């Protein structure tokens, strides 16, 4: 695989986004329409206490993913209610078209006391071509289980021959670290399947081999079919001291599969890495791969987890 970088595609600071959001356009994810591509992302406001809250917004771009046509002007999905699993933000959102409906799988965030956060996966549906989404219910479709004890999140869903496939992450440990401001989390990529998108079978197995050892954090899996083979991109980093230490921060990882179940990790063939300088020189994270008009595109965030937006790369034929 070889990806040709086209640079920064969307900078949130250049647009007037709803909910008072200015910085961050994280985890861009595409929904392809006939004459444009809608790219959802998570941006942030600050609440009364000064803490961040993630909101979903979108930018519509042309089919060659070169030019921003417009951005969302209203709330895409409202905040979760008091005490809900997604009360303090949604990051990221994964959008799937199936049976003439647009489904969204969300990663909801709620704040905790001994650790900063807990996450779980919610479900929503759009009846207006993805302008707005309604929750299917106030609670999560996938939360913790005995062997996936916390931090279930980062869903990516593919419906194929009537089977809903989901790649996601679950937490395996919270670790105390002198180099970090609070407890640090360790999470791994897993797989679930479903007949209806609501009831999921899963088996608490990490499906991608570690490259950085047992405390490697793996996030945001995304899967695409190219030339009859399945390709997974994700991001990975060290568990601690990853925010400003470039050597320990996020990079893009890669694995391939012929059957969607067994994955062989081979980061050397990812075909993309940090730049020598600029907006994606320190880290690469939150990848999303999709097809538009016969070309495969990779959306991703760079430095500072996407504070200054996302970029795009095109797969070389």
């Amino acid at each position, binding site marked *: 695989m070889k990806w040709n970088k086209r640079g920064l595609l969307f900078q949130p600071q250049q647009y007037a986004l709803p909910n008072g959001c200015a910085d961050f356009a994280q985890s861009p994810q595409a929904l392809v329409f006939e004459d444009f591509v809608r790219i959802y992302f998570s941006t942030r406001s600050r609440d009364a206490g000064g803490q961040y809250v993630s909101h979903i917004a979108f930018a519509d771009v042309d089919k060659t993913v070169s030019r921003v046509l417009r951005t969302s002007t209203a709330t895409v999905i409202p905040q979760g*209610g*008091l*005490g*809900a*699993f997604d*009360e*303090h933000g949604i990051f990221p959102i994964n959008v799937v078209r199936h049976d003439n409906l647009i489904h969204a799988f969300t990663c909801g965030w*709620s*704040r*905790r*006391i*001994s*650790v900063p956060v*807990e996450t*779980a996966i919610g*479900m929503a549906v759009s009846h207006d071509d993805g302008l707005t989404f309604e929750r*299917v*219910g*106030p*609670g*999560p*479709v996938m*939360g*913790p*289980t*005995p*062997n*996936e*004890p*916390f*931090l279930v999140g980062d869903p990516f869903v593919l419906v194929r021959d009537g089977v809903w496939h989901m790649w996601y992450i679950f*937490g395996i440990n*919270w670790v*105390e670290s002198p180099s970090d401001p609070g*407890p640090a*989390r360790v999470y791994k990529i897993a797989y679930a399947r479903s007949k209806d998108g*609501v009831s999921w079978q899963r088996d608490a197995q990490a499906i991608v081999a570690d490259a950085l050892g047992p405390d490697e954090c793996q996030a945001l899996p995304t899967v695409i079919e190219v030339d009859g083979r399945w390709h997974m991109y994700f991001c990975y980093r060290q568990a601690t001291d990853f925010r400003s230490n470039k050597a320990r921060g996020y990079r893009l990882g890669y694995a391939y599969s012929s059957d969607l179940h067994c994955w062989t990790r081979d980061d050397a063939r990812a075909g993309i890495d940090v730049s020598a300088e600029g907006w994606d020189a320190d880290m690469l994270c939150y990848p999303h791969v999709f097809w538009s008009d016969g070309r495969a595109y990779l959306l991703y965030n760079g430095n500072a987890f996407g504070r200054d937006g996302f970029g795009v790369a095109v797969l070389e034929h």
Partner: protein
Amino acid sequence: MFTWRKLGHVFDPARIDRPDWMREFAQAPATLVFDTFVRVFFSCRPAADANGQYVSRAAYVDLKRDDLFEIVGLSAEPVMPLGGLGSFDEFGTYPTTVIRHGDEVRAYYGGWTRCSSVPFDVAIGYAVSHDQGVTFEKYGRGPVLGGSLHEPFVISGPKIRKFGTAYSLWYIAGTKWIPSKGRAEPVYRIRMATSPDGLTWTRYGQELIPVRLEADECQASPDVIFANGKYHMFFCYRYSLGYRGREKGYRIGYASSPDLVSWSRDDGKAGIDVSTEGWDSEMISYPHVFELDGKTYMFYLGNGVGRHGFGLAELDGVLA
């Protein structure tokens, strides 16, 4: 109407020589009957921390089988550890419900975590004992029953039963949080799930007991027993706010069912109420009904929802 004869205040940690972690409270009694004694599991608390916050621990007291007012044993340590950093049960295990399975004793318990915008969340964990309930080993580090699409939070108060070949778990599920005087108060209702193996649960998906006091009535402790051809449920209920006194505090309600899922509520039949004075004069809650040697008993909590432990009542006649 049933007639419950109150026999008195059975157990209060403050009246005995006890460890620091059992300083006060003995909440949500649940029984396991042995040849010569009845093991009563309950949840207790060490002193509150500097912020006034409590952690609940699971314990038991053994009562002499032919005189339930005589204490013959007490757990030396909590019967299960708290969960690790970031786990659903890091800040408490309350309540605990137990059932025998061969030589094992299986427990379901409410695991407590602390949240930022609301004080807590609860999910139900599972644990197994190979020493008759003295110690339990948790099954995994996460819950067997937590928040789901239509039961979003505060999944708590489990009561495990086995009727026929299937397990039934009655529990409560939160419906909303009400902001009140700088704190959020949960509203919760009685629900149930069934399982062939005790691990994989299918939720019934509906509230079982209609509200009576107000739209935001809170219901807890769904304690089910089969007798004389039908299922009897004793539970407790209260107002959603202002419930820390006599007027709006917990009372014990009653419902019956032919089939475990359709219930007719008839609190007038419960047959037990607050006393005019004493340890159970302000509220009564967390009923647990059990049969022992031809008699039917109820353990229940009094004032302060078990701050002073639990008492015992005996049924005159039968559950019919």
